[in-house]
């Protein structure tokens, strides 16, 4: 028994099966990420003053990753076009490029960006102790300018004992009254060597930059994590289509392989598209 229209198109719909299938699947993915982004917006609008951090992510690295994904979107189309022209070697190389882009993206995310966050420390100061740390927070000036107060001191945790944290301060807290610090920076500023001592009894909550840190990082890790899983899925599928198994399919029925690449390419474009939303939402805004 043969299922009709797996490769050829059905005349009245003009489509083959998997193409409809993937578009439907992508519709459901839009709803999945749509819900997550809505949650992000909901939480952000609701966030109490000072609890939604800004400028903590590394923008140049994020930009680089964005570029890599865009390039991979192009190479996957070229791979598909090569198959359509029945040029397998060319296909093979473009596919390899696509796979490499995916792998680089994931490596940057998992081996560099995430761990960097895990090493960063933040201490939320109790409301009644904020004045005591004014020299790190600069709230008087911010109040005058009508800006949200700062309630957290961040940096690298040098050491701690039963009573205190010693923190090498981020530039924001090292020089809080400098207007330059009012906005996030494109190039991330390194942690300073200025050390602050924070008493534990003044601290409401102190954590590394983990999902537990704030609603911001909770959504950041959840959404980029889920997006990363999608990238991983795409890469695995591409690897399968690049291995010799698929060459045999190509020899039997090149159009079938081309269709498969088209379908997974659509998925890959979608994964890129999600990143195009993730990048501004988390890195820039």
């Amino acid at each position, binding site marked *: 028994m043969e299922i009709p*229209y797996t490769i050829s198109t*059905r005349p009245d719909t003009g489509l*083959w099966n998997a193409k409809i*299938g993937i578009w439907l699947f992508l519709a459901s993915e839009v709803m999945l990420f*749509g*819900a997550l982004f809505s949650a992000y917006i909901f*939480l952000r609008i609701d966030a109490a003053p000072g609890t939604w951090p800004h400028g903590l992510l590394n923008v140049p690295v994020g930009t680089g990753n964005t570029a890599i994904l865009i390039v991979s979107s192009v190479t996957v189309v070229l791979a598909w076009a090569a198959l359509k022209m029945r040029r397998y070697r060319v296909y093979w190389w473009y596919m390899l490029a696509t796979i490499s882009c995916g792998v680089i993206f994931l490596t940057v995310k998992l081996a560099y960006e995430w761990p960097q966050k895990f090493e960063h420390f933040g201490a939320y100061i109790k409301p009644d102790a904020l004045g005591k740390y004014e020299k790190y927070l600069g709230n008087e000036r911010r109040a005058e300018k009508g800006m949200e107060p700062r309630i957290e001191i961040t940096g690298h945790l040098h050491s701690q004992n039963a009573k205190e944290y010693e923190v090498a301060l981020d530039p924001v807290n090292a020089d809080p009254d400098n207007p330059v610090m009012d906005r996030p920076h494109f190039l991330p500023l390194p942690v300073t060597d200025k050390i602050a001592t924070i008493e534990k009894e003044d601290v409401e*909550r102190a954590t590394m930059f983990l*999902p537990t840190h704030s*609603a911001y990082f909770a959504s950041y890790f959840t959404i980029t994590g889920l997006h990363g899983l999608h990238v991983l899925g795409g890469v695995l599928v591409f690897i399968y289509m690049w291995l010799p198994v698929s060459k045999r399919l190509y020899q039997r029925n090149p159009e079938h392989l081309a269709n498969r690449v088209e379908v997974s390419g659509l998925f890959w474009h979608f994964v890129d598209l999600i990143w195009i939303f993730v990048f501004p939402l988390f890195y820039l805004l």
Partner: protein
Amino acid sequence: MDASTSVETHQDPHAHAAEHEHHELGFWRKYIFSTDHKVIGIQYGITGLLFLLLGFSLMMLMRWQLAYPGQALPVIGKWLPHIFGAGTMPDGKMTPDFYNSLGAMHGTIMIFLGVVPLAFAAFGNFVVPLQIGAPDMTFPKVNMASYWALFVGGSIMLTSFFVPGGAAKSGWTSYVPLAAFSDAGPGHNPVFNGQTLWLIGFIFLITSSLLGAVNFITTIIQLRAKGLTWMRLPFFVWSQFVTAFLLLLAFPPLEAAIIMQLMDRVAHTSFFLPAGLVVNGAPVSISGGGSPLLWQHLFWFLGHPEVYVLILPAFGIVAEILANNSRKPLWGYKSLVFSVLVIGFLSFIVWAHHMWMTGMGTAVSAFFQTTTLLISIPSVIILSAFFISLWGGSIRFTVPMLFATAFLPMFGIGGLTGIPLAFNSADLYLHDTYYVIAHFHYIVAPGTIFGLFAGVYYWFPKATGRKMNDFWGKVHFWPTLICMNVIFLPMFLQGMAGMHRRWYDGGQGWNVSNEHTIWGLTGFQWNAPISWAAWIMGLAQIPFIINFFWSIKHGEKVNDNPWEATTLEWTAPSPPPHGNFVHTPVAYRGPYEYSLPGRERDYTMQNEPVEPAERTRRKPPAELVPA
């Protein structure tokens, strides 16, 4: 009409054998890891029926506690602790936690493991490809994966009964913050605890539904037989088509919510948790900044379309059976199709009617009240069209028809009692009472479940080549119908008297349930007759179970079209071989050509070519037009 005329289904008996000449699959590939839509449909069906039975059994236990709170459950009360753990029913008396687990799991199992697999996946899988004249689903392997995802999800849900602390206990809606903190802390595993397993199991169930939905929609778009245009599709196919879209688009937001709740429980994030929560007297150390309302929005964004996922397939089944047994075309086919499409669309914009208590502003609530009332219009159109379809028919009261006709008033009661809930002023009082329980159970129990029973009796001959026994079918039907009403009708009254849906003691400790009498019994006292009706209804299912299994081997043998129906599935052999049809069917006409004037039989199948004489006779012959 004699039987010999009905065997015109373009098949000769030897064709079966010819179909089977390709290599035979081994037992495992043929019955367990099969990619054949019929086998998968039957797997889904049996799984769904078993889970319905299980979910119902959980409820029968709860009914004891409601009717006789604090008393030891006789006989089985002694051995239940050996199954569910010593802490659940010490001395046969149910603990509050165990009661809550039973309630949460009853809802979850009935909806996501009982009705959805049976109504959507089982009937959809078995019937839809046959009705559209397709050899199989478009993606047979995805189809198999979808069943096994359900299997894994169901197994995880079942396992959760046996982990320390027992199964999830925060209701089928798993409202936060309650759900975020239940089954946590000392004595609970961080992952293998009731609520966390509920969430993980759910991810598998959602995956299963998504795969199924993609497959169904693609199949209906791509594999319709030649000549089977959209307006010639049986209504059942339409209802499955819309249902698939609901699943496809409504489930992912719940999946997102489940991922977030999982993060809240396992990674201690605060998606749904505001700052300053105190649990068991101690402040919890979380970042806060989350919103419990966010969960409710995401949950009901699925939740409301989900209730239509439960009812639309039943509409479809009932439509087929009504037309077939009244020997008349379905009345208002086009309005039915448009109504079901409108329902599908509107069901995405009514969800907040489950949240009137959250204090939304007047503008928002006006919007949702309006949409909720709008959605009842297509529902009423469908129900009316069904009733009118019966008018003037020569009705055959077969067992499927009994269930299908009983469906109509039962669904009517359920739907009409939803209207007061659509107004927030009325609902503020009725919310979370037994009135709501009665409202939706009238729709899903004597409604959907009757539709499902009807479908089982109706398509059983297609799957097995044999009919289920009529007499025992009636013995199943009548007590079930009566018990359903004894169970759910008083619940409206209990609810209006103020009885809360989650009281563990059946209301014994609350004045409202003891002061008001309804027909001579207090709200609390009504629990006992309701419970007895539930247990009797449990017994009434025994004839069905026996009939089902007995008929597989010993039922009356019937031909390929025992109900003298018109749609394409009845042109295939019973049971259909791998690949389904002996000759690829071509459709020449609409799905319900019953009692065409001037024909010798009162049904004309979709694959019967239009005769030249018919063309000139688009209108009924003069002698049939009333003067």
